[in-house]
């Protein structure tokens, strides 16, 4: 059986400018997705900024 959950993850991003922070957040989202989307038993299917 497969269950699906929504997790709310709070992330703190540090940077010198808003643009840099946005870039870092994007990179972080990509890293999470690339690392966990391919997992077999527990995998991330979607990441969205709330």
């Amino acid at each position: 059986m497969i269950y699906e959950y929504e997790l709310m993850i709070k992330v703190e991003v540090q940077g010198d400018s808003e643009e840099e922070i946005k870039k870092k957040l994007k990179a972080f989202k990509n890293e999470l997705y690339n690392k966990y989307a391919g997992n077999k038993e527990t995998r991330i299917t979607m990441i969205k900024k709330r």
Partner: protein
Amino acid sequence: MIYEYNLKVTTEVQGENEEEIENKLKAFKKELYNKYAGNEETRITTIKKQIEIENKKISRQELIEKVTYIINAPYTAIDESFYQSPEWINTRDKYIKNNPFCELCFNEGKNKKSDDVHHIKRLTAGGEPFAEDNLIALCNSCHSGTHSSGGIAVELNVENYFGSLDYINNFTTKLKNVDEKILSQCKDGDNVILIREHRQGNPGYVGVTNTNGEYIGEVNSADESHHYLAFDIDHGSEVLATIKEICNKKNGLQCVIEIKKSEIDWEEYERFNIKEKEVSELINTAKQLEKTDCEQAIQLYRKTTEMLIEMDRKCEKYRTTWRGTRFPICRLSLVLEKQKRYKECLEEIESYQKYEDKVWLYVGEKEKIEKRKYRMLKLLQIICNKQ
């Protein structure tokens, strides 16, 4: 400066039971926290389980029973304008947003995107149009299955279905795109042959020829009461058709044919269906293996290609048209190209192109493999020149 963001992360957890799944989710949260809480520049501060996406409490079987009940209700025409109303569009969009996966597939452990919202109890049978209890999010496949004579709605209740809706089995229909020259040589009562083809842009195509195989016209598959015809032929139903009337109207000759269908061979359908699911699962496994074990992925793609050819061979002429699983040639050739096995890649593409695939590939794949073939030819030419 430090900014704080909330990320909504949708996670899928697989397990034997609820306890195992809960434990796996906990372990996953812990892993994420341990890995990213200590980061300096981008760090996770909290992780909370927000929602558990519920399993809809309706099974495929229950839906079949409900739909059968509805089918037994008197049939009246559906007011199509309802589906264009802003109230319905809003309700539908909101429901799909809250139920992003096909609820029937989800119940069976598969995650398929929901494409449409279906009324469990039909509106013309008194179903509530906006009540969530009467709505179910379905993928295209399950939705068409629910409505079609060959789908989940009736697969266990064939007699009931055909008994109450005789117009689906016996009906007359006016042909479109007629060939007046051939038609003028026909007469009322002549037998005609229906040709089922899965054409791009018109998957419900049913052509009509005379007994010599000369084209007369085509059945208007957009006509609501007749679109079951293509489904039925796909599922192996024998169909007889005769010319009921040829008349000369202002716009030229017109032809009305009478169609009589027999029952679908459900045993054959099920046998084929199980095999197809097996192939589809193997293709998915191969896709997952592409990153970790290319050779294994290639072998699996080749194996599934052989299985599909075998399935096509065993099935009668038109049954292959409803096969949903497509040849994995696009993936196979891509992996071979990435592996720089250009000759093999070219051979696979050419071998597929020689094969008469009645089901076609997914949209855009044909063009992709054509481009890849051209690329392979160029590359092989360059390699050959160097040698």
